[in-house]
């Protein structure tokens, strides 16, 4: 894999994105704002506080994590699949000096970039609404690239093995949504059966939520092990998107 050639793929995605981004970014505000309003204010009127923190401030940092996750997953499932299968963009690119490993690396880096971008936008939005307690939240930004890579890796792995675009329903319903609901964004997992926390430990979103919430409250120590977790996992998963894509595309 050659990083410069991978960058060319990333550049192509950026070029297309800058043509289409306006509607995309605007919409990316709306859903998190709805969650904050409906749950933060609506449910927050009943729940009041969790762990001594007003409910809306409890969930706001989690929304950074979830927006970041959705960005990487949608890019590296749906968009990657469309490029690969319907538009045949991959075929076009592979006729140039770009090889498949460069292309996969470019897809992963682009997914991670979108993850970083959309997570950062949420950081800005919730900071503007005074829902962030500490400037340490800035440290989340580079970490969003790492978790973005993890979500991208998992997504590309899945994209490489599915027979048809409908298969993504399994991915969204059985993996993404449970992870979203049981990652500690909306409620701590302590009061649920211990098996839930044990499973959550193995999901990237759980750790990203801890990191976002910890840094939002200025507490770096509490999320050191989460940072270690994401660093280890992003490296462990790295070979698999390449291997699976090779198997799918180059016969």
């Amino acid at each position, binding site marked *: 894999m*050659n990083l410069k*050639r991978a960058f*060319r793929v990333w*550049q*192509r995605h950026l*070029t*297309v994105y800058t*043509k*289409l981004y306006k509607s995309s970014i605007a919409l990316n505000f709306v859903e998190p704002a709805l969650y904050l309003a409906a749950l933060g204010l609506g449910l927050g009127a009943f729940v009041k506080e969790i762990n001594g923190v007003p409910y809306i401030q409890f969930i706001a940092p989690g929304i950074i994590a979830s927006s970041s996750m959705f960005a990487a997953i949608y890019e590296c499932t749906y968009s990657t699949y469309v490029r690969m299968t319907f*538009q*045949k*963009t991959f*075929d*076009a*690119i*592979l*006729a*140039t*000096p*770009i*090889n498949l490993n460069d292309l996969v690396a470019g897809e992963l880096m682009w997914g991670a970039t979108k993850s970083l971008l959309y997570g950062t936008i949420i950081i800005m939005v919730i900071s503007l609404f005074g829902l962030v307690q500490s400037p340490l939240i800035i440290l989340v930004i580079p970490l969003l690239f790492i978790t973005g890579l993890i979500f991208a890796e998992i997504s590309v792995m899945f994209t490489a093995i599915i027979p048809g675009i409908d298969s993504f329903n399994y991915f969204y319903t059985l993996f993404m949504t449970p992870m979203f609901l049981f990652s500690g964004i909306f409620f701590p997992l302590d009061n649920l059966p211990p098996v839930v926390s044990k499973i959550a430990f193995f999901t990237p979103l759980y750790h990203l939520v801890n990191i976002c919430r910890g840094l939002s409250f200025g507490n770096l120590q509490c999320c050191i092990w989460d940072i270690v977790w994401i660093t280890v996992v992003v490296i462990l998963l790295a070979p698999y998107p390449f291997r699976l894509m090779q198997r799918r595309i*180059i*016969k």
Partner: protein
Amino acid sequence: MNIVSIKNMTKAYGSLTAVDAIDCQIQQGECFGFLGPNGAGKTTVMRIISCFMPPTSGEVTVFALNVTEKPSAIKARVGVMPQEDNLDPDLTVFENLIVYARYFDIGKQDATHRAGELLSFVGLKEKADAKIEQLSGGMKRRLILARSLVNNPELLVLDEPTTGLDPHSRRSVWEKLNHLKAQNTTLILTTHYMEEAEVLCDRVAIMDMGKIVTIESPQKLMGIHGGNLEEVYLKLTGKVLKEQL
């Protein structure tokens, strides 16, 4: 000088043998055609030459470089016109060329200049800012031809370059290809149109079920076996070249 050398090359997908131990040498500056119906293995040969996938066995070199060892170096000097349209629907005609040029590390200024030249060459200058979906089938093929030339390739690989085009567009593409031939670009194409092979090719490889039946110039083949290439094909393989509808 051999631009492409294929020695005892086989490509198998599990139990299916798509290309069966073929041998073929393609000279610089010639227009070489692979003639045969769908399923004969022509596209597979094209994809292996353009380093899209490796052969199962045998040796394939382009510019004396092995396709499995130096794919990027080879692809930098090759232009590919695929059978299917794989243009970027989110980009304009002009942008498609610029973005493609970037994969070859061609700088913005050079790319812009080159794109302008190529659009003139294929007669799409006024369509530079058009969306891909606004183009007719013939225009899309011409754009794909233009795109395949962005890196000034020494070798141009064309997979069914005029399939699906009306006769006027077809002749237009042939005219462009002959122009490139005159500039000493090596052309390799696949086709199941015998007229195309007769008009363009210096030599053709007749392919049937993954094997090369014979390699000869169209004129010689027609001289030996009589009639047009359609009849030559029928004589040599016992099969009809044109697709049965």
